[in-house]
């Protein structure tokens, strides 16, 4: 029942059929892959926001111009954040295998990818938070201090409120980046739509299937960007 097929030329001269039959055949696997991608993002991104926000605030506060300057401690944590951020994700994935086993009890599968993704995302988001806050300038902080606000109040009531639109944009950027990172999950059998594209398209020369997977990823990125931009714009009252 081969009702549509388009022939695409590939680099090695052979032809790959983009047939609906093959897609239908692989549909269950595509759904699983999509679900895996969602699982990776829905766990790692919220944890990164939850832990990266205080880390970012902390980096800002302890910086030489922050609310509570601690230049030495700041330098150490700042360096640590940079160190984690400089690992290529593929290497981080492998380097922290013992830690991953300790946390989730396994080193393969989707759960095993979520650990390094999260470890990578926390300092990534912390940097965003730090930058978004420090870009607000000293004016509002000074006003709040003059009003007798505590440091906690300044952070909660002033800085996070004023940085909210920028933070929403940053979450969007982070999510898009991590859709891409999640494609490396295949290395440890983590699955996901990116891994699906690599397995079928790259290893098996099923270009059609790969294209479909890429289209799905494009749609995902567009959807994330679309909603992220809208949320950020709605929050921005400037």
């Amino acid at each position, binding site marked *: 029942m081969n009702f549509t097929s388009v022939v695409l030329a590939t680099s090695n001269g052979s032809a790959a059929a983009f047939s609906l039959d093959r897609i239908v055949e692989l549909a269950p696997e595509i759904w699983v892959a999509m679900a895996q991608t969602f699982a990776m993002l829905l766990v790692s991104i919220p944890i990164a926001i939850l832990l990266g926000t205080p880390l970012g605030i902390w980096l800002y506060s302890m910086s030489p111009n922050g609310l509570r300057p601690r230049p030495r401690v700041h330098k150490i944590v700042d360096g640590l954040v940079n160190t984690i951020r400089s690992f290529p994700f593929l290497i981080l994935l492998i380097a922290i295998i013992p830690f991953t086993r300790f946390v989730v009890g396994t080193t393969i599968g989707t759960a095993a990818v979520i650990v390094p993704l999260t470890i990578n995302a926390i300092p990534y988001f912390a940097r965003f938070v730090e930058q978004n806050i420090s870009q607000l300038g000293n*004016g509002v902080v*000074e006003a*709040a201090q*003059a*009003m007798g606000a505590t440091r906690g109040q300044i952070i909660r*009531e002033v800085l996070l*409120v004023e940085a909210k639109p920028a933070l929403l944009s940053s979450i969007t950027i982070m999510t898009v980046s991590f859709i891409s990172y999640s494609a490396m999950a295949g290395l440890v059998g983590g699955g996901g739509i990116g891994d699906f594209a690599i397995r079928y398209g790259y290893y098996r020369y099923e270009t059609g299937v790969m294209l479909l997977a890429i289209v799905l990823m494009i749609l995902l990125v567009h959807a994330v960007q679309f909603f992220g931009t809208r949320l950020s714009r709605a929050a921005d*009252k*400037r």
Partner: protein
Amino acid sequence: MIRLENVTTTFGKGRDQFTAVKDVTLDIQAGSIHGIIGFSGAGKSTLLRNINLLQRPTSGQVFVDGVELTGLSEGELRKQRHEIGMIFQHFNLLNNRTAQQNVELNLKFAGVPKKQRRERALEALSIVDLADKASAYPGQLSGGQKQRISIARALVTEPKVLLCDEPTSAVDPRTTTSVLQYLSDINASLGITTVIVTHEMNVIKAIADKVSVMEDAAVVEEFALSSLQEPGFEPKTPIGRYLISDEITLNRQPKQARDLAANVTRV
């Protein structure tokens, strides 16, 4: 109401050290409007920040309403700051909060229960005739309106002192008049001691009872504005005399001719 004793503020260390306020002693009467004038970099904003310890002086003592702020713990200082309102050149309002929320924020910091905040915020906004803008965001308001919101924000905790850091330097001349009128009315009706830092003598002439003239980190002279009416009164310092004349006078002679003339006189 406010007393500064031998206040000195320095920034930086070693070779980069720079003194912004040098051994200033100042007494500001309760209920008065006190101006601080000087050119850019004279140290007037730092001196103002010394009053609420937004900038802690390197040495010297600061008293507000009999309390030595320089001797307080951080927590006690925060409590005292609820008694000292402050407004800024660039308003420093929160862009993502409405006018009312901005005003309420000060009450929140002061620990006022939520139920009373709304009412008191609206009351403060009506003092500056902006109750109808309560739900507007700062981005939807003009510069003058923003400054009035920030005045409402400062007043809402019923402070004894209002510090104004160049409150009219970012608004146009007509708005300047309006902002000063509000500050003057508030001073008259609430008896709030007002300190106003500016580089415009017109502002001082319009509103102040007394003025301190600053130059190179020091207060070089102080006089009551009423003395300007006295025949024969003249500020003692050149900068004082310059500031009260406060007119923009340009030399319309071509620059070449001026340079030539300057050379001739130098010879």
